[in-house]
């Protein structure tokens, strides 16, 4: 399964890079979202895969061996939320950008300067 998920991470990163290199500003935002997904998955997979054993304690004496690692999950949780904030802000920025410049092409922007 690790191989399959590794391929998935690779594909997500590939898509992110490809979209980040577009001239259309909206695709750039999509690339940003992809970059977030890819990085979350990277941390998640690299942190070790544990099936069906969430980091949840039933009592003080609960056995912790074989339990999934809570730390990467905590990191990803933060990343997801911040990713939402950044993406929402970027989307609004794109909206304003288009309202002001009447273009979604980055190259036209640099020529306007």
């Amino acid at each position, binding site marked *: 399964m690790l191989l399959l998920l590794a391929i998935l991470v690779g594909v997500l990163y590939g898509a992110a890079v490809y979209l980040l290199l577009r001239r259309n500003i909206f695709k750039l935002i999509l690339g940003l979202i992809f970059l977030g997904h890819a990085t979350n998955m990277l941390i998640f997979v*690299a942190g070790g895969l544990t099936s069906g054993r969430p980091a949840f304690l039933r009592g003080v004496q609960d056995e912790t061996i074989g339990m999934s690692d809570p730390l990467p999950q905590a990191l990803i949780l933060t990343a997801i939320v911040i990713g939402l904030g950044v993406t929402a802000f970027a989307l609004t920025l794109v909206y304003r950008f288009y309202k002001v410049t009447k273009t979604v092409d980055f190259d036209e922007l640099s020529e306007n300067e």
Partner: protein
Amino acid sequence: MSTGLFLLVLLLVAAIAPFARKYLGNYAGWVYAIWPFTGFLYYLSLLPAVNEGLIITESFEWMPALGIEFSFYVDGFSMLFSLLVLGIGTFILVYAGYYMRPYPMKGRFLGYLLLFMTAMQGIVVSGNLITMFVFWELTSVSSYLLIGYWHEKPEARASALQALLITGFGGLALLGGFVLLAIPYGTYDLAYILSEPDIIKDSNLYLPALILILLGAFTKSAQFPFHFWLPGAMTAPSPVSAYLHSATMVKAGVFVLARFNPVLGGTEVWTYTLTIVGVTTMFVGAWISITQVDLKKILAYTTVSALGTLVLLIGTGTEYAINAAIIFLLVHALYKGTLFMMAGNIEKKTGTRDIRELGGLFKYMPFAAVVMIMALVSMAGVPPMLGFLGKELIYEASAAAPKAFWIILPLGFMTNVIMVFLSLRLAIDIFWGKEPKYGKIPAEPSLPLILGPFFLVLVSFVLGLFPSTMANPLTSKAITAISPLHDAMVLKLWHGFNLVLALSAFTLLSGYLMFRFRHTLLLSVDKVNIRYFRKEFTRYFFSMIDNFLVFTKLKTKTLQHGYHRFYLMTLFIFASILVWVMIWRADPIMLELNFSDMPLNLIAVVILIIAATLSAVVSSSRIIALISMGVIGFGITIIFIAYSGVDLAITMIMVETLLVILAMTVVYHLPTYKNFSSTGARMRDALVATLVGTFFMVLVLQAGTSSLETPISEYFKETSYSVAYGRNIVNVILVDYRALDTLGEITVISIAALGIYAMMKLGKK
């Protein structure tokens, strides 16, 4: 008193000079001259001891870990130079104090002059290569300030910049040369290097070190083809020219050559380079000076010529040549200082420096005329001035030069003829000649303005009259210091009738004939110049600078093109190449393909995500792209659930839902996709994407096979319930252990929300 202390106080005087002038008024020059004059007397008092063989050394710790010290080394050669720098400097300060009266910022000017004096004095007494370099740079910087003193004039700024760039370039070369020179010795200590000349000669660093040091010396001493900055520096006030040309700045290069003559000299490459460069500079300088009409320009080009002569003599390196070099150094310093100060006086009294507009000045300023004519007599090499001895020795050295005397002697002869011609021309045309209409009647320059020229000429005269009792003690140790194998020769005014005397007589005669027929001569020289020597080095220099600026602009435009995607692409390509190299050098990954741990439902989910990704990337519809994004988000949610990331899954569901809704609202306002890029560009981007994607894939596999120790996680697991009273460890981490991070996260979200709100509000107007 010590050398270091003297320099420190000199520097302090320079620092307070601009502020103290207010209180000292017109006596500032006199007051500031006290300290250099004290130094002059101090070194003069040491002269007998130094002639006995004393070498004064002093050392202060500076950067002991690097072997760099602030150290001083005063031998006979440093002594001669110190006397020149401080002695002439004293007169220059007195002169400048009066000369600069009508101009603004006099105090600052005197401060620069003192700073410059400190720098030059520092060079000649340095006992450590790095110390020497520091003072060397200080001369470049302070001469920039002095040359560009009248900074309202564009040509003054241009000349100052030119001088700074050329000597600054030379300074860098010199530093490189010093570092290379120090490597085989393992120290920057001058005394040690001078005592072991063979170490560098046996090292293969000799040639690179030599080339760099020569570059430094040649640029500073205005050797061909770097000679053009010196005449340009004539835009400076006259006191600066007088000082720069006589004892300092331009002599610094000659000083370095002579100083390192025992270490670097004597080899074939040294001899040939110095001879060729010196002879060329000597003749070119003299030749150009023939047709100049600006008094200061004439003198500047004769300085170039004299510097060439000095380099030539040091390069020749025989006993005669070294003797001649030291004597001529002294001769030149004395007459050139006088002539430049007199040029300033004449300009002050008549308002012009153009020799075509000068004439008949003798009856207005007879005393000044006598002083200037004596200096010119020294320049022409006529007895009884010291210049005569200098010229005789140069002839002897040229005739006895072991290599290429057949070219040195004729060119040396012609140079001297030109000097005689110029001396006659300046003396007769300016002081007798046809008298033009002067704006106001010229008068004798006042005492401080004539004091310096008078004393320098007097010294030259006395030394010339009593060479063996006066000039010999001053120079003998300087000669042996820079050339330990040779002795100082006993100087005589009268050598008897010999070839050299005949040559001298012939020189005078030719110079006179040149003067007699100067009208036809000048015309023909002009013709030759227009035909063959129209190359203006200054113009070339500035066009080079301009081209450099154009090149820099082009380079910046290429690298800083302003296209975000190409910046990103550069970043991606280089980062992935770096990581690929790392992966390449790491251990190979052992992969076991075990289908038993691949549940079919998860395989389906992964394939679904990949398909959705492709669809999101290539789709030409924004709606389909967004729906695909939703699929990817929820697909990832399922993977989180399958591998025990319950909290992640819950968060993802909410975030993805919000995002898709938000994106839909924005897309509604945006135009549909257009084809911006060509197929080639797409292929290129796909290639970059593949490069990055694959290395992340390999990275994940690497991470999966390496065993990670998780001591922090173990701590969280153990204490989550017992200490923090929470069963859900992920939540406990977020709200307890890393609570501050979560606070930061909330802040980020709030700021983003504020930003969004502001942007939407802005849209309403």
